[in-house]
């Protein structure tokens, strides 16, 4: 069945998953929806200790079994040690058919690949996957379907019971012996536990893992003792240098600086740039540079940001410290400056559900004026792809991309026209992760394209005459004129993953990648060439 972004979602997938094809951004707006709570075992006995000696004991006490779903958060980013630690124990105990429901998975989790190959792990639900797990899924090694959900979509799936977690393992920088967890302090300081809060609320069992046990009560708790079954103390839950490093050095890449300038020009020349405006941006070089350009103009015109939100960086926190922003709402910290900035009384932690869940009574993203995003590919329908590489390999994560793009009044995607030889602006994205109806402006180093659905923005930018305006087709044509039109990547028929839209409908499917012989070899005998001429041999070239 063809969905609202023109992707064919096979009937068998709709049957297996029980999901509907994507029907447009506001399909479930105002529709009655039932939420589901977990099945818990209350702790009434005041003699009971929640401390367990090790992960194995926690698994036994939480009734670990074949076919269960375990969950994890990714606040420790590439420094995470929890996922591998827990999965090793599950593997050693011989459990099979495990589904991992993670907020994201990255290169740190490459050691899971053998567990995918041997059938320990048969399901993966995540914002996305980078590194070797992505390759393994694309190569068809995962027995079940990989489900990619946005940060808001994951909260929705757990809250509605579409996804059910048997045991949540929550890495906590600090914890007390009764399960009050904080994201700040300790050795693996990540600032916040925003993505894990829904796991506390909806998983049947909840195990806290910490390397810094503190005296009771560890208050104010980010995840409460009322949600936590067991507390396990281990030597190390994360590698601090890979969790949050110093702020990224400002970029000197002229191409990125140019795009940053265009992006800032778009922001300051559209109607929402006025005192009290709201803003979210990312960690890329161009995003950070554009935040700095923006700060200069805010100072000049005495315009203050009402609130900033998101995964936060030094550049955003600086606005708060300088009094240029009133409030920061924090779901993740990308550098140590952002972690330390949590001391600022106007820097607030928010749960992922408050940030982006589409099926609550209004998430923070709905109040965004601007969001600045990146994308692997954008097509002429303004659809974005942030999960599957142009070569067909799963290599990225949705994160909050679809959530913020839908929520913001003006969603800007910064994307260099070319990534090496790969055109980022193309006719059809490999896989749709964010629908074109959510994307308003595309900023490239060769010009800026506005979604024709947003004549208001186009008009404002024309009047301001601030950036070189192009149509999205023009941008694609420039790209293709430089690098040539790419061949369509070939896939097998087997579907290895689905891209879930925010509301739980299916945006697109990901197919198994076709094996390709590398190197590609061409042979030609001299004699044949003399006799046959080039035209005939050309058709048999390069398999």
């Amino acid at each position, binding site marked *: 069945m063809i969905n609202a972004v023109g992707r064919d979602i096979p009937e068998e997938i709709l049957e297996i998953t029980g999901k509907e094809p994507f029907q447009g951004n506001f399909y479930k707006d105002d529709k009655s929806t039932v939420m589901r709570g977990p099945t818990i075992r209350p702790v009434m006995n005041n003699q009971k200790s929640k401390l367990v000696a090790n992960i194995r004991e926690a698994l036994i006490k939480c009734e670990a079994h074949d076919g269960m779903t375990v969950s994890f958060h990714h606040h420790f980013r590439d420094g995470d040690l929890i996922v591998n630690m827990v999965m090793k124990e599950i593997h050693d105990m011989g459990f099979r058919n495990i589904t991992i429901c993670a907020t994201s998975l990255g290169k740190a989790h490459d050691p899971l690949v053998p567990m995918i190959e041997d059938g320990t792990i048969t399901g993966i639900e995540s914002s996305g996957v980078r590194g070797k797990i992505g390759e393994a899924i694309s190569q068809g090694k995962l027995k079940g379907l990989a489900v990619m959900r946005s940060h808001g979509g994951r909260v929705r799936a757990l809250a509605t019971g579409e996804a059910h977690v048997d045991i949540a393992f929550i890495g906590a920088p600090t914890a007390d012996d009764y399960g009050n967890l904080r994201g700040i302090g300790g050795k693996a300081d990540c600032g916040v536990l925003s993505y894990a809060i829904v796991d506390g609320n909806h998983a049947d069992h909840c195990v806290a893992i910490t390397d810094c046990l503190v005296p009771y009560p560890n208050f104010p708790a980010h995840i409460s003792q009322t949600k936590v079954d067991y507390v396990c103390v281990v030597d190390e839950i994360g590698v601090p240098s890979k969790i949050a490093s110093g702020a990224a050095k400002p970029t000197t890449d002229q191409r990125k600086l140019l795009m940053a300038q265009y992006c800032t020009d778009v922001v300051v020349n559209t109607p929402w740039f006025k005192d009290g405006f709201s803003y979210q941006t990312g960690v890329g070089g161009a995003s950070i540079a554009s935040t700095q350009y923006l700060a200069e103009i805010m100072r000049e015109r005495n315009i203050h940001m009402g609130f900033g939100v998101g995964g936060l960086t030094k550049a955003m926190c600086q606005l708060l410290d300088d009094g240029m922003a009133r409030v920061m709402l924090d779901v993740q910290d990308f550098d140590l400056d952002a972690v330390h900035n949590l001391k600022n009384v106007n820097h607030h932690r928010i749960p992922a559900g408050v940030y982006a869940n589409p099926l609550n009574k209004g998430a923070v993203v709905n109040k965004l004026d601007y969001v600045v995003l990146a994308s692997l590919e954008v097509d002429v329908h303004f659809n974005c792809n942030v999960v599957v590489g*142009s*070569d*067909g390999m799963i290599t990225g994560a949705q994160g909050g991309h679809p959530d913020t793009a839908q929520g913001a009044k003006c969603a800007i995607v910064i994307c260099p026209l070319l990534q*090496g*030889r*790969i055109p980022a602006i193309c006719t059809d994205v490999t896989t749709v992760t964010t629908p074109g109806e959510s994307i308003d402006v595309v900023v490239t180093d060769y010009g800026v394209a506005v979604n024709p659905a947003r004549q208001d923005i186009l008009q404002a930018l024309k009047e301001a005459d601030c950036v070189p305006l192009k149509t999205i087709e023009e941008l694609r044509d420039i790209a293709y004129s*430089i*690098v*040539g039109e*790419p*061949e369509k*990547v*070939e896939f097998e028929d087997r579907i290895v993953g689905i891209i879930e839209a925010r509301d739980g409908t299916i945006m697109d499917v990901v197919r198994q990648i076709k094996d*390709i012989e*590398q*190197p*590609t*070899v*061409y*042979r*030609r*005998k*001299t*004699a*044949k*060439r003399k006799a046959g001429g*080039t035209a005939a041999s*050309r058709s048999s*070239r*390069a398999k």
Partner: protein
Amino acid sequence: MEIIKTAVAGTLESSDCMVTIEPAQKGLELDLESAVIRQYGKRIMEVALETLDRLDVQNARVSIVDKGALDCTIKARVECAAMRAAEHEGRISWGGVIR
């Protein structure tokens, strides 16, 4: 153009390619390894073979390790490697086969 010795041109930097040409007895053999093989593999082979034809290289073993080079880069690297391998460096036919 007769390939006399093994020669290399190019680098393994992003957006470049490294072309190695070796002498061979019978015919042309071309190996391609590319970061963008799924999207541009056929095109790269085409460009490389066109260039070799233009230079009239009939007997050689050619290997290309491509890191996303544009057509013009591939052409230039193949030409350069062939010139070196044929010891033509001092007498390149600018405006002739090298356009």
